[in-house]
């Protein structure tokens, strides 16, 4: 059977980004008045069903030179532009008691209140987004706000159109912000690579040496393929080598960050277990589900405070600690306390609890995953340089993992509870005879471990799925980390988690994700043969338990 001969596309012919800018700049020189009608028509066209028509409309609006066109296009790009059903006029909306309060998108006049059904959002597609960004950049390169100029300069980087280059040269003449100048300089250097004169090319090549922008590297690679002048060639090769050298260093730094970040996730997932399993000796198979409960708490907190997404995590962290901690106390009081001294049987009972918790979530909330949102400060990346960016969510979670670790360490080493916990863990009978209320300590310790698992769930909800099965993804890794580090030693858990994370990421590029993980497991198995009690073995009597 022939493979799909009948599928013909509905094509959307489209002015490319270059053509658009070209058009904008030419049209800007024309008298404006005659275009008002055209713009009015274009505004209506924005809510057309066809993306083709919409794109043409955007071109017209951008070319109109209306000072508010930029705002309108921004609103369109941001998905904030609606069309009034009655006359299809584009409007901005704000929620109001009766429905929406409308503002005219172009002149900003108040258009009164309407019901929700009276306006419809104007959708855009991938191509339009690109078109809009370029159009906005062209409109805003001369903006008085340096931040806006910076964005525009970034968007126009590497654009080879002579008119654009001319505009950039113009702007460079009056630009006083250094960051914007850098981008404009780079753009000009890239343009000069295509200059007729070898001397101009040579200067450009030298200017690009060591630049980490992908555009610079690509332009140099391209230049090398057809450069006639030997001197420019040699310079280009040197420049490129300098770039490659820098990129390698950056890639190494990036891998290290990836490894530490993966490690911090492992540490977070495992650290609660380091208490319930490591300190108390309970083989807590429900640990993963306690993480899940923490993640679901985050979800519920976000549902409960819809307008305050950016602060939701600060509420979720204590909430998850309390919810998972109380659940932990409940589990300890109702089941585990009957099983002390029979560690392997705690495995069976907690496995049963984990099944119940999973199904509980499935029936009370949903079998589907739930959407936990990222606050704005968790999105995006910290740009160190053009080739190295550290994503904020990973960075914060790395820091958070260390904070949790330090807090736990302080609790165990510096508080009365910590002292009692360690006493009970080392010698229950002795501790009791010294007046420690071991039952209370057990409950609190287990609650602490469970609470920390819940807090880990808050962090993990920012990285991955939140669903009934999420706990199972972490339980095995968590046990590996605790055992590798040495049962009963928090430092061991920290070092083990970070080591395994970095080892995994170092191997991943050449072995692939799966094989890297297998190799890490084999490594742990062999390592335990060498050091049967992990990296930091516990010494003394308790070690025989």
């Amino acid at each position, binding site marked *: 059977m022939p493979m799909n001969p009948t599928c013909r596309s509905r094509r959307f012919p489209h002015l490319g980004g270059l053509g658009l800018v070209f058009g904008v700049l030419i049209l800007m020189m024309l008298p404006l008045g005659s275009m008002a009608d055209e713009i009015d028509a274009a505004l209506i066209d924005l809510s057309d069903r066809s993306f083709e028509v919409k794109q043409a409309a955007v071109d017209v609006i951008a070319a109109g030179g209306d000072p508010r066109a930029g705002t309108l296009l921004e609103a369109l790009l941001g998905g904030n532009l609606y069309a009034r059903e009655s006359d299809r006029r584009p409007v901005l909306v704000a929620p109001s008691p009766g429905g929406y309060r409308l503002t005219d998108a172009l002149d900003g006049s108040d258009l009164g209140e309407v019901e929700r059904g009276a306006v419809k959002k104007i959708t855009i597609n991938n191509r339009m987004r690109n078109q809009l960004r370029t159009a906005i950049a062209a409109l805003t390169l001369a903006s008085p706000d340096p931040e806006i100029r910076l964005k525009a300069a970034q968007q126009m980087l590497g654009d080879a159109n002579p008119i654009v280059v001319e505009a950039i040269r113009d702007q460079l003449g009056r630009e006083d912000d250094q960051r914007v100048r850098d981008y404009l300089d780079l753009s000009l250097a890239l343009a000069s690579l295509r200059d007729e004169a070898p001397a101009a090319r040579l200067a450009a090549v030298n200017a690009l040496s060591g630049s980490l922008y992908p555009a610079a590297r690509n332009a140099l690679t391209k230049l090398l393929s057809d450069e006639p002048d030997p001197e420019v060639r040699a310079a280009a090769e040197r420049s490129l080598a300098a770039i490659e050298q820098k990129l390698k260093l950056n890639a190494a730094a990036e891998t290290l960050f990836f490894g530490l970040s993966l490690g911090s996730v492992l540490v977070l997932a495992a650290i609660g277990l380091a208490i319930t399993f490591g300190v108390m000796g309970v083989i807590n198979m429900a640990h993963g589900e306690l993480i899940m409960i923490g993640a679901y708490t985050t979800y519920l907190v976000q549902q409960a405070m819809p307008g305050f997404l950016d602060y939701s995590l600060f509420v979720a962290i204590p909430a998850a600690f309390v919810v998972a901690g109380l659940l932990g106390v409940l589990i300890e009081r109702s089941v585990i306390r009957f099983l002390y001294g029979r560690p392997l049987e705690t495995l069976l009972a907690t496995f049963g609890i984990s099944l*119940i918790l999973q199904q509980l979530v499935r029936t009370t909330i949903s079998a589907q995953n739930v959407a936990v949102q990222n606050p704005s400060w968790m999105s995006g990346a910290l740009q160190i340089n053009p080739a190295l960016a550290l994503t904020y969510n990973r960075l914060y979670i790395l820091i958070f993992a260390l904070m949790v670790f330090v807090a736990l360490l302080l609790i165990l080493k510096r508080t009365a509870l910590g002292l009692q916990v360690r006493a009970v863990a080392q010698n229950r009978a002795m501790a009791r005879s010294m007046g420690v209320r071991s039952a209370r300590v057990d409950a609190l310790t287990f609650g602490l471990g469970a609470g920390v698992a819940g807090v880990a769930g808050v962090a993990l909800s920012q990285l991955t799925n939140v669903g009934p099965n999420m706990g199972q993804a972490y339980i*095995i890794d968590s046990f590996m980390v605790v055992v590798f580090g040495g049962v009963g030693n928090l430092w061991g858990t920290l070092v083990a988690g970070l080591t395994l994370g970095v080892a995994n990421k170092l191997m991943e590029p050449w072995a692939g994700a799966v094989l890297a993980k297998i190799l890490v497991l084999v490594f742990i198995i062999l390592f335990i043969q060498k050091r049967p009690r992990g990296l930091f073995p516990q010494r003394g009597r308790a070690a025989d338990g």
Partner: protein
Amino acid sequence: MGVASVMRGDRGGQAMLAVLLVVAVVVPILNLMVPESSPWHVSTYTVTLLGKYLTYALLAVAVDLVWGYLGILSLGHAAFFGLGGYAMGMYLMRQIGDRGVYGHPVLPDFMVFLNWSELPWFWQGFDLFWFAALMAILVPGTLAFIFGYLAFRSRVTGVYLSIMTQALTYALMLAFFRNEMGFGGNNGLTDFKDILGFDLKSDATRIGLFLASAGALALGYLACRWIVTSRLGRVAVAIRDAEARTRFIGYRVDRVKLAIFTFSAMLAGVAGALYVPQVGIINPGEFSPLNSIELVIWVAIGGRATLYGAVIGAILVNYGKTYFTGAFPEAWLFALGALFVIVTLFLPKGIAGLVGMIRTWRRSRSPAESAAEAAP
């Protein structure tokens, strides 16, 4: 040493074997001789289901041998089971011959459509039943031997050992998931046609496999009884209860452990090999660490260190699973989870211990009666 001597004193085991014998005689008759319309007819579905339970029971016995009598909580026995299953699966795959969907004379379907040009070396020989059968025992045995040799020599014990066995099965699962390994990746091996020339779809073959499973369970059970009643078994129990002391007395603890662990792995391999033709598929999911945990739970529910308890536990839990997944698809995990919790809390010796508990309870209620009972 006869059957009678190894079974002496094992009343639960005697009853279990007797039930097994009766079922093995009655079920084939009810399946093959009784017409389908009769209420006494046992459907082929049931026969296959019982066959599957029996292989699980054998696996549970293998786990109980190392956990109950040697004190090693293996969270990786599913790995040995899976390896035995894969060996049998490879044989069954080769038996398909040119009846695969692409009609290739040698290569299994999944290799054809992933553009393999020839059979990889480790698939050679699996067209012969005896070779595959040998591998189903030797591969798990060898793996257990190497793993045990390293672990027991360096005295990895307790939870460390448990977690390491878990790492082992987890690593195997990830490895078998990889399509490059040449074991069919996530899909595993399936669409089997026949075994030793007998059509796998025929009732008679299914009965045959059912009987083979019953036989393997009986033999495996007797072998384990023989071990636990032998001198080796008594040393094993000593190791379980006081490892250091046994070592100081002069026993080679690591060798005893290694021997029993390896034997147990081989038994698990046999169970796997019998399991695959009855369920019709083997895939990496069998290596899942959760499976290993589950089978430890069968043993715990049946009653640890009784052997026959493992059989009861395996059959009961799996029957419960079959029944509840059909009858209460939405709620069966609650029931299963609650069962695990309740058994650990209230029946620390499992169902096998229940008899003893009832006996004690009755005795405490009417001391006179129990005294009278004790008299003869």
